[in-house]
């Protein structure tokens, strides 16, 4: 081959190898960057008045007076929405009107019974009222305008009948007038379609603005408030304004998305102006304001993580990892000390080393199986404890998982202490034990600390070992170490895959995983910094 070609290949090789590193850094950025960006949205966002109401009701945060003022302001902007909605509903939701008409009739009958009139009169009055009732019901049931008009007219003819003054039947005339007005604007043949769309519109408006005032409080916490964040409000608004359909444009091709404005469905009715009103007055109805919701890190969440924070998860993760470290660190350091200081290259030591490496290579899910079979199902009943997953079992399992990490790191750290330190101490007459305690160990401490921090981060991030030994997706904050707990790692899994409600709130999904990543990254950066300092120190000596 010619020299030029060889040099060219050499250069290409160099660039390719550099690109591989850039690729790695790039993938790191691509993975972490968007997650942290989206996750920070859980803390920094534009909050609405609904959010402030929730904060006040659940945690007593913020002032009552300011909240009431804001609520009144928002309320005044919201009233037209409900007015339009309720008025339109009268023409559409006829079944509820029919029940109302029947209810009024029943009340009237009862009223008559207490009026102490003779039997024939009673029957006569009631039959008159019954006639009116049947006319109204017939009007509601029909979809033909020409049929409805005479029915309504018959009802209205009786409007001045003195018999019905100040009785529940008097309301019938108002119903009839309203209905007369509505049938002139609404195409009754589309009533079923309208009714269907109306429930969707109502649902979206509830998601946006919360439950309609004066309608009672829903049972679920996630239904009690509207959109607490502007980004969520925008999503809901979009679903309100547009209908999405998957249509087959060509045969055999995948379905394609088609969006049509929802206002088109209600074209020609008074509902049409509702959509433009909501779009234009969204800010007035929700009063957005930038918020820093740092309490995200300490608050409990409502079921499904719809509202609230990740406090219990953080506490659970800290408990699990610290307990695991407490079990593993003494064992790890003593093992490392033995391996470096006391053991030669005998067959026993070789077996021990092979075992440590094996332990490091055992898949994390097998650790989980082992924790279930040994700690939960064998050891706990043996010790007279309840045989159920708990923090203790999970942290013992994690301790086994990180034991080899700590042993290796401590071994490296102890090995890297210069031989001269030990020799100086031994020459002064100190015993082996004394030398280790007062010279070698302090010198190796920063290195050991690095190992401990790294294993902390490893334990915090592991999910598979705690799946069957102590993690739950929902549950109260644990009171003792004999109860299962929530954890950041398992929570991240659950919120990403298992939970349907959580799919509606991406900021919650990304928030929890960001908290986990930042915890692990922070620990790692600590470890790297300590090692950096250490390298400088040993270079100095």
């Amino acid at each position, binding site marked *: 081959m010619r020299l030029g070609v060889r040099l060219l290949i050499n250069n290409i090789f160099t660039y390719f190898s550099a690109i591989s590193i850039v690729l790695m850094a790039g993938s790191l950025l691509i*993975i972490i960057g968007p997650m942290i960006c989206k996750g920070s949205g859980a803390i920094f966002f534009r909050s609405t008045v609904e959010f402030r109401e929730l904060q006040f009701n659940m945690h007593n945060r913020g002032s009552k007076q300011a909240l009431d003022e804001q609520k009144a302001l928002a309320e005044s902007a919201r009233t037209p929405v409900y007015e339009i909605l309720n008025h339109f509903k009268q023409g559409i939701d006829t079944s509820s009107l029919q029940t109302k008409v029947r209810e009024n009739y029943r009340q009237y009958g009862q009223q008559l019974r207490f009026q102490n009139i003779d039997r024939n009169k009673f029957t006569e009055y009631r039959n008159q009222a019954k006639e009116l009732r049947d006319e109204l019901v017939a009007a509601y049931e029909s979809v033909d305008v020409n049929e409805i008009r005479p029915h309504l007219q018959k009802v209205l003819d009786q409007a001045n009948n003195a018999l019905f003054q100040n009785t529940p039947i008097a309301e019938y005339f108002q119903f009839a007038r309203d209905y007369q007005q509505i049938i002139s604007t609404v195409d009754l043949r589309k009533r079923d379609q309208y009714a269907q769309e109306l429930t969707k519109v109502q649902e979206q408006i509830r998601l946006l603005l919360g439950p309609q005032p004066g309608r009672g409080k829903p049972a679920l916490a996630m239904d009690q408030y509207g959109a607490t964040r502007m980004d969520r409000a925008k999503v809901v608004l979009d679903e309100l304004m547009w209908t999405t359909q998957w249509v087959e444009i060509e045969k055999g091709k995948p379905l394609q998305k088609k969006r049509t404005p929802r206002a088109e469905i209600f074209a020609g009715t008074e509902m049409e102006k509702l959509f433009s009103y909501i779009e234009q007055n969204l800010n007035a109805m929700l009063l957005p304001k930038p918020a820093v919701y740092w309490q995200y890190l300490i608050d409990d969440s409502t079921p499904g993580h719809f509202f609230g924070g990740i406090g219990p998860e953080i506490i659970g993760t800290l408990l699990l990892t610290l307990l695991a470290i407490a079990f593993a660190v003494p064992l790890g350091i003593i093992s490392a000390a*033995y391996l470096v200081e006391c053991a030669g290259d005998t067959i026993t030591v070789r077996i021990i080393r092979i075992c440590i490496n094996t332990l490091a290579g055992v898949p994390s899910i097998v650790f989980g199986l082992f924790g279930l079979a040994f700690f939960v199902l064998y050891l706990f009943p043996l010790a007279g404890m309840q045989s159920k997953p708990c923090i203790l079992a999970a942290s013992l399992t994690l301790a086994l998982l990180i034991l080899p990490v700590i042993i290796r790191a401590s071994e490296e750290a102890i090995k890297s202490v210069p031989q001269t330190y030990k020799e100086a101490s031994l020459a002064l007459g100190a015993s082996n034990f004394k030398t280790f305690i007062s010279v070698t160990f302090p010198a190796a401490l920063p290195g050991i600390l690095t190992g401990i921090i790294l294993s902390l981060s490893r334990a915090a991030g592991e999910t598979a070992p705690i799946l069957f030994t102590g993690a739950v997706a929902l549950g109260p904050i644990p009171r003792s170490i004999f109860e299962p707990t929530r954890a950041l790692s398992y929570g991240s899994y659950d919120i990403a895959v298992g939970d349907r409600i959580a799919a509606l709130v991406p900021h919650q999904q990304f928030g929890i995983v960001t908290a986990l990543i930042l915890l692990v990254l922070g620990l790692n950066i600590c470890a790297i910094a300590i090692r950096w300092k250490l390298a400088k120190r040993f270079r100095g000596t």
Partner: protein
Amino acid sequence: MADNKNNSLLEQAADFSRPLLLSPAQDMKGYILSHLGRAFLFLITCTSVLSVLLIFVFIIKESLPFIFQGTWSASINRMWEFFTSVRWYPEAGQPEFGALTLFAGSIYVTFGALLFAVPTSLIAAMFLSDIAPFQVKQICKPIIEVLAAIPSVAYGFFAVLVVAPWMQTHLGLSTGTNALNASIILAIMAIPTIVSVADDAMSSTGRAIREASYALGATRAETLVKVVMPAAHSGIIAAIILGMMRAIGETMVVWMAAGNASQIPTPWWNLGSAVRTMTATIAGEMGETVQGSQHYHSLFMVGLILLAFTFMLNLCSEYFLAQAKKIGKGGKRK
């Protein structure tokens, strides 16, 4: 006065009345203490050995009821079904335990991951050991460490919420969670392991062989590919095995991203179809099964296979690492 002071100082400095030799009793005490101390340390060190033994014992103990149940021929039949059948219906009225699809799933994602990870990480390792200047290395090492430190559930999260929708819209696959998705993410997870071990192996081959190669007129690329890589081959093999162990034992990513459909892809090279691995099966089904049922024990059986497999891989990697160490030492001595 001065004499007095001298005397007291002397007394402080050394107790000359003390016998130079320890008495037999003291000797014995020191001997016993130091040996007891050693024994104590040894016992604590044996925790790791004990835990490895316990892991094997308990996983085997829990999977035995699945292996031996009923007559011998029934047991053999069940094992035959376990290793050769593709029908895994553990909760059906007539439960079937054919784990072949699970093995296949694990193998698919593992080799898929290696396909992406090995070339990238070998080139990166060469860059770190021979090409990069010291400062660049100082920056690269933390990047690799952080890449290794990100929790697997975060990778799985990324795979499910970012990669999967992207794949579905841009690659036109029927499902975003599939073997390809899991393989790519597993590759990113395996790269740090492979890079750091291979980098160590290549650095430890020594300057001498490189300089010999340069002296013969080879370029750097030629030296790396034709001299350094063959010399460090055992370390590189160990690195690949370690990366493989990382990929095969990984649970969360494959559980979230591989699609969990128990099938063997057709055609066989179709990485775009959903698969289900051994680890994902254990993670997904253990929570829903009754303790002590046959399904429960069969999951331990899957765990046992996994454990045995990683154990063998581990022994292999150990053998190759020992080889690499020998070569490194040999290079230095010369």
